[in-house]
């Protein structure tokens, strides 16, 4: 049996992109640009954009962020897996937030709406 290979962060965002495009109605009411600055071996940036063009996840800074979430890559994986929620991550200092705190609060609702 082969060893489990952890998906790269790029692959995680591809998965998110596919999921939200498959069921875009689940992102209604959560419009905004969520930027993720993730720290691993290097720092990478992705955006989750929910706007009139439909929800999508992209690499880099494509639009001005409404909220920027800064955390370690591993903690981001836990958020996506559902083993860490954004509120707990913020209150324990694992997640730093800059910008619109209201959108940050909605992130958990977005994540909860999908099976990644």
């Amino acid at each position, binding site marked *: 049996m082969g060893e489990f290979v952890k998906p790269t962060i790029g692959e995680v965002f591809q998965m998110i992109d596919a999921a939200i495009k498959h069921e875009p109605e689940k992102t209604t009411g959560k419009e905004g640009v969520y930027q993720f600055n993730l720290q691993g071996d290097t720092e990478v940036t992705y955006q989750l954009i929910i706007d009139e063009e439909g929800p999508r996840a992209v690499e880099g800074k494509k639009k001005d962020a409404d909220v920027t979430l800064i955390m370690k890559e591993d903690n981001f994986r836990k958020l996506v897996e559902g083993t860490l929620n954004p509120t707990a991550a913020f209150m324990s200092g694992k997640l730093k937030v800059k910008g619109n705190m209201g959108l940050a*609060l909605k992130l958990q609702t977005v994540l909860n709406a999908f099976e990644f």
Partner: protein
Amino acid sequence: MTHQHFQTVEGVLNWNAPLYRLYEKAKQNGKWNPRDIDFTQDKIDYENMTEDEKITIAPLIASFSAGEEAVTLDILPMVQVMARQGRLEDTMFLTTFMFDQAKHTELFSRWQEEMGLGDLDLSAFHSDSYKRIFYEKLPEAMERLNRDDSPNAVIKAATVYNMVVEGILAETGYYSFREILKKANLLPGILQGIDYLNQDEGRHLQFGIYTIQRLSIEHDPSFNIFNDFIDELWPDALGVIEYLTSLYDLQMAQDWTESKLQLDSEKMKQYAIRQYEIRKKQVNRGSSYQRVSELNESMIRNNSLRSS
């Protein structure tokens, strides 16, 4: 600046000056020590609160921590104005004022430290309205006093500092703390601190009201400087409150939120509006006086600044 004479050599303090009376009151009532507040139960309560409940009160803590720090740092030019203008009793009162603000800053910092929040950056809870008032308008108005101690500048400084920050925002903040925490029977230590803050703030408001009235009677009998400036600041003051209530409402609208904390957003906004109206009414009462001496006599006659 050099001194040409000394009031207490040529005579004595003016024991009946309104702000001397306030100074006496401060000495008598402002003796509490943040370090004496017992946060043992707060720690137990905080550990038992859900993450959602913790984040509900975080914006209030973030607002007060920065707010108290700002008013501690920004009061100095007002003290220097009163000293430069030879207002000894006012300056003496402001020494207690500064000490109060330092204790308020200490209170929140101690509480955060004791709850294990010492390293947590809560600045994301500062909305654009909050930033306009606390990061910009307040320090700008206070800093201006370093180069301009005209009645216009002092009235504006006291309006943003005493009437908006203390008289509207802090008062509404106390109300919110009590509404949320007393109902839930949580965090008695910080609530005790809030009671002390509220008592201190009462004296600070009296300073602001008196100072604006005194200068307006002499230089702006229509009270336009005050009224125009508080009206200019009001949308951002309300914006601060609306942001806090919107975060609460948003959090409660999420189906995953686990919180038994309750806050009536509309009631909180109405409370803030009421504070705005009260502050305007209090200050504008001064327009019925032709001379400052009449204002002073009225304050003494009404015993509004009794030391006990």
